[in-house]
């Protein structure tokens, strides 16, 4: 029991405490949003999420803060919860561009949740399946398989089905990269010829050394032919898995680019680089070669690479390696919107350096190409050195 004097003291102290609480008023809506944004900028994700949730609970007009919550969850790798929050934000926000941003992030969450690049089909095939794809059914010359975008003709029913499926997978990946996610509203005929000999007989416009090719041509009757020719068996008579992993997506990418560019000219290096990027997996030998060329004498400088319309045999390997490396560099450093706009500007006839600067919405700088070349070369050398170090490193346990 406190004495009278103590009671007065306690009362005074508690009054002072109350006054102090009253003096530190609760932060305003704007202050709370800003605190949450600060936490997000510091990458303090739990705090950003907690503060963001606090804001959205403060009233119906505070729904924009769902984006902070979503971003924090996304960065923390909690994709499903992030998608929920992005959706809440979409429901609360008025701006079309902000809603589009949230939609793009939802797609991204889904991709990230699904994991990294899918395993190439060749690595998924069993020995039994490979053996099945060796069969050439000459009696029933053509086995047709139709998918949303493709009509596949092959000498093997199973192969026709597999090519159809893989073609759709490849097209989806290419559209996402090159057409900024737009659909490819055409039907393409795919012929899988049983042997190289048959392929050369039918794909008459293809170069002699090729194992696959594409055709985009307007016929006299106005019909447009979209066709990809492939081979089932390689020169040794084995099932050509490269056809599925590399040749099919590569030729399809050329076809999509040819369609996109129409009469306009796409620099060869960009065309080939993108086609190689479309392949199911990266060919590390290209990365190593590109990096080696940068440090050695065989380097093709970027300014020349972009102007090349064909390449001599002795330069071909470096040309393809650098084209792949450069396309990969651009694609990994630009957003889809930027990459798509860059292609639009190239299509409209702008030189690549100007097209890139326009797509980035930065003032054009005469020295840009030189700066870009230096940055790309540095990265290519770094990647090449990394891969070589991996190769040279002793493996554990074997």
């Amino acid at each position, binding site marked *: 029991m406190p004495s009278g004097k103590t009671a007065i003291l306690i009362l005074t102290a508690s009054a002072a405490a109350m006054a102090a609480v009253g003096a530190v008023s609760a932060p305003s809506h*704007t202050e709370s949003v800003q605190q949450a944004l600060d936490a997000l900028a510091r990458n303090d994700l739990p705090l950003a999420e907690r503060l963001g949730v606090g804001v959205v609970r403060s009233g119906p007009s505070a729904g924009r803060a769902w984006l902070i919550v979503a971003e924090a969850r996304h960065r923390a790798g909690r994709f499903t919860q992030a998608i929920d929050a992005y959706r809440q934000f979409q429901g609360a926000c008025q701006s079309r561009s902000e809603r589009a941003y949230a939609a793009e992030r939802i797609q991204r969450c889904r991709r990230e949740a699904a994991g990294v690049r899918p395993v190439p089909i060749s690595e998924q095939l069993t020995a039994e399946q490979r053996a099945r794809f060796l069969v050439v059914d000459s009696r029933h010359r053509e086995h047709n398989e139709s998918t949303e975008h493709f009509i596949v003709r092959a000498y093997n029913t199973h192969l026709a089905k597999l090519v159809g499926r893989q073609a759709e997978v490849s097209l989806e990946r290419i559209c996402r990269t090159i057409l900024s996610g737009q659909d490819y509203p055409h039907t393409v005929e795919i012929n899988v010829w049983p042997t190289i000999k048959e392929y050369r007989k039918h794909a008459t416009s293809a170069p002699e050394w090729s194992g696959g090719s594409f055709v985009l041509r307007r016929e006299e009757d106005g019909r447009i032919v979209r066709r990809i020719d492939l081979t089932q068996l390689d020169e040794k008579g084995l099932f050509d898995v490269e056809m599925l992993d590399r040749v099919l997506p590569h030729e399809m990418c050329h076809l999509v680019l040819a369609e996109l560019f129409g009469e306009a000219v796409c620099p060869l290096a960009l065309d080939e680089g993108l086609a190689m990027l479309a392949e199911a997996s990266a060919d590390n030998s290209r990365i190593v070669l590109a990096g080696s060329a940068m440090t050695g004498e065989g380097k093709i400088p970027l300014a020349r690479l972009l102007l090349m319309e064909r390449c001599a045999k002795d330069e071909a390997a470096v040309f393809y390696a650098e084209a792949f490396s450069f396309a990969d560099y651009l694609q990994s450093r630009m957003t889809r919107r930027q990459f798509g706009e860059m292609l639009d500007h190239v299509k409209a006839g702008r030189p690549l350096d100007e097209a890139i600067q326009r797509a980035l919405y930065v003032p054009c700088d005469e020295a840009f190409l030189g700066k870009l070349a230096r940055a790309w070369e540095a990265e290519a050398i770094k990647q090449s050195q990394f891969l070589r170090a991996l190769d040279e490193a002793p493996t554990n346990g074997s």
Partner: protein
Amino acid sequence: MKRSAAVLLVCVSLLAAPAVGDRIVLKDGRTFEGSVTEPNGKVLIELPYGTLSFPASDVLKIERGPSLMDIYRGRLGVIDRKDPDEVTVLAKWARDRGLMRQADALLREVLELDLDHATARKLLGFVRADGKWLEAGEALKLAEAKLQAGKLDVLLEQLLPALEEVVENAREQLRLKEIHAEALLGSRKFAEAAKAFASLAGKLAGPAAIRCGAIASILRAHPDGMYVLSEPHAPLAMLLGTPAEAGRSGPASLSRPEVLSAALRDEAKAAIKTGRGHMGEGRKQELTEPEAAKAKYDQAGKAFDRADALVPKITRSYRVEIARRRIAMVTKDMNIWAGRFDALKEQLAKRDLTPAAYASLLFRMLRALRNVQSDLETILELATPFDRELILEVTDAMLRLERIVALRKVLLQEVRAINAKR
């Protein structure tokens, strides 16, 4: 105590000083006090509310009063020159009456007596900051530095209010308002910052006004100060530097300068898209309606002006493209006139002409050349701002222009000779 009383006395006596100026008495008995002049037989008297004019014949008499300088000298004689407060009061009195040189001299005297005399310092345009007295220009620079360093509280609470009292130069006042608006934004007072930028937009002109207006509207559209970056805020860093330098996309505070820059870039993007739309329409009309195409390119140019105001020089490549397209259009017109000139020249060689017909032919040739010249001048006008990108066009037009001028000279001499014979 004694000193205070003396200061008070001086103040009262200054306030109670007689009205400065002259007095006129009109023949009808009315009197006016002010500053009298007598141009061209008239008597003008300048009063606080305007100037009255009377014919000299209406004026009975003019009584000249003591001049401002007389009063000033009188006051100077009675104050204690060793007392900084007394001297300051007189300096202020002099300033209020437009005796700026005298006031400044007195204030300098005060500083000799007391270096830290706050009133004298303020009247002389000094601002106290970081324990030092700084002239307005230096203080403005300090304010800019504090803004850059993010020392916004001291800026908003001390330095800027002090500067507001002393900055008189209109350009410096505007810069002060800009710093104030930016400091408000940095301090996350978004609504106040929006008002400050809107007010600046009204006071500034050209690109600066567009930029401030855009900032005000961005802040009004995002009252919580949260902006959604759809892309990393430093797009060049992604390609030329490292992704870490480029920053992340996503929600971010508009109080961060890089986020505001990204927001302005988004506004510029929208303006560029509008401009590109006009360019596309213009391109379609080039062949059939060149004037309409030109108008579309002008519209595109206006959209690009806005984009350039938001991100300097962002549209140069589009402007070069427009210049190229317009040069191609003008070249087409020029080629028609050049063709006409060549056809007329052929007539000159083939026909046996009368002197009158010969003269007429020469005039028509001159007209064709004049049009070619005018087209070439237009090409030069279009290409010269982009002489780095359009060096071929500029060189070609200059060489052709030289030839045309020489040809015209020859033709004009011939015309003069014909006229002389007539």
